């Protein structure tokens, strides 16, 4: 028997209203631990919705999402939320850092909902930020450069040692040079954390960074290679 995949999707389907065409339709998809994959598709094609479904923040109409061996939608309420906090990290285009909280606190916020002992939170968050090149750990997000904010967001995503990191258009607001730097950071951080990375983007220039890539259209009918 092989290692449990970080992500497995079977027959996933989601439509906003019954009878309407599906916004998300994924026949089958598997991602091993440490594997990195780019998912492409134009605006409004359901990329972010797919990530929300994988994270258990939306309910599919059909199909299964299995993360780190756990059928996500078989869990309910707080159990699913705690599982998400422990097993899935998320990175957003706008970073979505908590305003009013320092860089360190933003990373510790992710640890709040994890099984990591409280006494280790500060040290663990501090080390992670340092490793990712954030020196001003007590600065608020608005006091940091965009690049530094991105590093904080990445640190928060991998803080709990997740099996899977979901990145939603992580470079959409950056110029090409910073976009490249950001992707270097994300991919390296995921690799170091042993987490699988599923990155969705409409930017075709990202393709060369990923060995595995697929469009949503391809996923809707076939198992990607």
């Amino acid at each position: 028997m092989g290692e449990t995949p970080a992500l497995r999707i079977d027959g996933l389907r989601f439509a906003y209203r019954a009878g309407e065409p599906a916004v998300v339709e994924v026949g089958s998809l598997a991602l091993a631990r440490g594997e990195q994959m780019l998912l492409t598709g134009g605006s409004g094609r359901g990329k972010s919705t797919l990530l929300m479904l994988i994270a258990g923040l939306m309910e599919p109409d059909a199909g299964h999402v299995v993360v780190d061996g756990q059928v996500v939608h078989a869990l309910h309420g707080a159990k699913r939320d705690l599982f998400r906090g422990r097993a899935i990290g998320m990175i957003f285009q706008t970073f979505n850092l908590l305003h009013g909280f320092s860089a360190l606190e933003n990373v510790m916020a992710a640890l709040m909902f994890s099984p990591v002992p409280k006494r280790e939170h500060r040290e663990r968050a501090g080390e992670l930020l340092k490793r990712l090149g954030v020196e001003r750990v007590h600065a608020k997000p608005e006091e940091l450069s965009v690049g530094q904010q991105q590093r904080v967001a990445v640190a928060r995503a991998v803080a709990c040692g997740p099996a899977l990191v979901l990145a939603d258009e992580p470079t959409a607001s950056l110029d090409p040079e910073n976009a490249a730097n950001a992707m270097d950071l994300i991919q390296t951080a995921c690799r170091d954390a042993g987490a699988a990375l599923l990155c969705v983007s409409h930017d075709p220039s990202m393709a060369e960074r990923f060995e595995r890539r697929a469009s949503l259209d391809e996923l809707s009918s076939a198992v990607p290679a």
Partner: protein
Amino acid sequence: MAMSDLTIIGRSLTGRMFSTVTTVVTVAVAVGLMFVLLSLRDAGRQAFERGSGNMHLIVSADTSPLVSVLNGVFYANAPQRPITWERFRQIADDGRVEWAIPNQQGDSFQGLPVLATTPQFFTHFTPAPGEPWRLAEGVFFEGPFDLVLGARAARLTGLRVGDEIHLTHGRSDARAGGAPAHVHYDFTYRVAGILEPTGSAHDRAIFSDLRASWIIHAHDRRRALDPNSPRPTEADLTDDDRLVTGVYLRCVTRGGAATSPLVPVVASELRRDPSIVVAEPKAEIDKLFTIVSNVDQVLLAMAAVVMVSSGIGIMLALYNSMEQRRRQIAVLRVLGASRPRIFGLVLTESAVLGALGAAAGLGLGLLGAQAAAGVMKERLGLVVLPSLPLDWMVVMAAATVVLASLAGLVPAVMAYRTSVARNLRPIG
């Protein structure tokens, strides 16, 4: 220190400091107002009961028992109708009466009331049970034209022991713009003593010897008939001159008890005489407070309305903040916070606002009650000791927190129902 729910709540409150402070102040004002009203209510009654001291009954020829108490104990007005000396003797000679102290009101000095009485007033009557008169300086009456000043009267007039003054007939205060009054220039009084404060209305009174009062008023009456009539002496006084306007009366008690079973009997018998009014000060003050309690209840209702308004204030403050916080809530959900935990965070934040308001309100109320007590002492001469039992304070604080939590329900439900997908970024 690790992040906790309280860190998030604290940061949320400090992040919108103006809103937090105004909300807390609103709650604090409501709690403080309630505290002041509750703490002064009983204290006010106790303060009013001080002046009647150890007397059981007050007898006068006023129009009603309440007026008799207001005039006789609180110096509201000078009684208009006198009691004859003969009637007074009948009352005082009753074997069931331990003491009966006659007094006469009608004169004043600089608008302050003068109570002409006998030395028994200082030796038998006490302004509060178990708290006898004490002199700050000087002595009690030594001669008929000696005066003893209440503590506040001494402060207001600036008189010192040894000073000499003339009393004014009636309560008119020409100094304060009142009509010119008749001054008893023919008789000079000397300040013999100044009393320690008693915390009663007696503090603003001036006490003179009843014999002197009889003499100067007999003189006035005789001069009205014959301008050349000589100054009368005590020996010249007749029973017609010996008029009293009030009698402080105490019935015989057993073993120094505060009350006596004879009081209702004596009072009932005296009430058969239509020319006099007999009042039990404590009962009249109770009646007065029953009347005042309606106002009291209106004030309490107003305080309750302010409390509810402050609850609505909390709700609005949190409700308005929800729009800005939806993204934060969505991020926390992504990080692993459950819907119930988010609900609890907002509800706890609301409760914290209530708790801060309650704490500030109790402090504010304590200061307010002290200030109100100070004003009452300054203006009315009443010693009010604001007090609220600890369990009442706990109940008030708990009720405020519960009210605040209820006010937080709507925003908490909004937070609970916050859509993560919709609030993180546009769906691609």
